[in-house]
């Protein structure tokens, strides 16, 4: 465990020793703010309309109309940002030769992979943590429910974890950061839009495609529902990616 933490600590330090950590967190903050502002205007107008009685007596819900969509919007920018975080993880170690230090130190491949994953996850959590300011602000002016917010964050953490674990795997395959970044982005995008064609397919295919969609599993979390189907999807996605990463690092040794 202390070995995993040592690696995670080093990774995290690495993000903030170079500009990458600041750029990722900084731009995420700007984008969060922009999304939040847009949704807030939209919510404000809907509230006015509801109040004027055009759409009946239906009350507008801040969780459903503002916080839920905010999470879903943020999930889109993760698709662009997280491959930039993971593309350097292994590629950089291979390029600078520091991989020799890690592979000849008394560490298992599993410890190295877990350490790197946890390091990236903490950076992502810090990035996500910025949105606490926006949502916290709503508590001062309104009365949102905290439970759907908590499950929403859980869902975001799981989905981001899935993105990161997959990016880590791709990074372990190549020495080239750009290649790692592009492949990660392309495949994650594939997983994101995989269910777009679902409506044209047969029922079974439709079910499978919908299940594979990486963002489709987030909806229920933002509504306050923790469905084991979704939990299993994300956790097994992460576990499988990390397993592939360990195998890939191991096979690298054999291939030389």
């Amino acid at each position, binding site marked *: 465990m202390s*070995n995993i933490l*040592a690696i995670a600590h080093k990774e995290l330090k690495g993000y903030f020793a170079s500009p990458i950590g600041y750029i990722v967190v900084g731009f995420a903050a700007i984008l969060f703010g922009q999304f939040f502002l847009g949704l807030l205007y939209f919510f404000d107008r809907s509230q006015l309309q509801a109040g004027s009685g055009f759409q009946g007596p239906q009350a507008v819900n801040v969780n459903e109309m503002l916080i839920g969509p905010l999470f879903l919007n943020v999930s889109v920018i993760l698709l662009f940002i997280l491959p930039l975080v993971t593309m350097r993880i292994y590629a950089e170690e291979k390029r600078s030769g520091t991989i020799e*230090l890690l*592979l*000849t130190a*008394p560490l298992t491949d599993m410890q190295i992979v877990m350490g790197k994953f946890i390091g990236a996850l903490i950076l992502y959590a810090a990035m996500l943590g910025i949105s606490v300011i926006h949502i916290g602000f709503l508590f001062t002016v309104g009365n949102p429910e905290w439970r759907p917010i908590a499950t929403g964050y859980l869902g975001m953490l799981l989905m981001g974890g899935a993105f990161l674990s997959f990016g880590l795997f791709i990074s372990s395959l190549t020495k080239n950061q750009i290649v790692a970044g592009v492949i990660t982005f392309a495949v994650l995008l594939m997983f994101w839009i995989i269910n777009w064609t679902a409506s044209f397919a047969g029922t079974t295919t439709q079910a499978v495609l919908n299940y594979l969609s990486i963002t489709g599993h987030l909806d229920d979390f933002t509504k306050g529902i923790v469905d084991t189907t979704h939990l299993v999807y994300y956790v097994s996605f992460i576990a499988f990616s990390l397993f592939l990463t360990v195998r890939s690092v191991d096979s690298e*040794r054999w291939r030389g």
Partner: protein
Amino acid sequence: MIEVQHLTKRYGPTTAVDDVSFSVERGEILGFLGPNGAGKTTTMRVLTGYMPPSEGKAIVAGYDVMEQPIEAKRRTGYLPETPPLYPDMTIREYLTFVARIKGVARAQRKARIDSLMERTRIVDLAHRQCGKLSKGYRQRVGLAQAMMQNPEVLILDEPTAGLDPKQIIETRQLIKDLGGDHTVILSTHILPEVSQTCHRVVIINKGRVVAVDTPDNLTARVGGSETMFVQVDAGGADVKTTLQAIPGVTHVTGGDTPGTVASFEVNSETGRDVRRDLAATIVRQGWGLLEMRPLRMSLEEIFLHLTTEEAAHE
């Protein structure tokens, strides 16, 4: 301490290391000598557990590097050809990270890092970023990294490459001091380095071991005949013929320089010591014997001899 048995490593169709066997005793400094691409780095990478062998096995500090890699790695320090430094970390941050992953107890970390920085003379640069260091300093930080957990076995891949002459001498001295407590394998293609620092030499060429011996024995073994260097002040007399007449002398060369002082190389039969006769003859003639010393075949010559011999076999 280190046991290498029938080690073979193939990269696809090419065989980098071919059936290499040797062993190193505790406290010994072993030189690994060979031209570039001979398989030195590959052998070292197998010994450190960086990559598995295709065939054969390696036992380091009593642990098979394939069966019990963690135990073997705990007892091995490794300096790769390019020191594995993180450019964004300062030297102290880097060494602290290394101490953590190598399992140095928290309470001892600071003292250990301080003493290593002292030993490798990098104390003044503790807060300098590794990416901004010169080659010589990178090498020293790499060496401090390798010695971190005070390992029984040290494997150093070209530890003096890229250093200036002063640094080379310092590093060689450091390695010599390590022998005794530590078992050291160092690779190099600089021959004098081997005769200066190593107890034994493994000469490797095209993935095969060509010779394993002490530097002295190698010199004697390949020498064949013995050669003496003689400088005589004979006032222009015909020294060459006189020396050739001494029993046991097979061949005399030199003496071509103008003036009264002439230098000769005297070859004699193997195992026959002609030094006494040589000196007596020169003195009896009334000449001045200015210098007389044995000429041994240098490691360079041995190396070329052995590696070309290998090529001739194929």
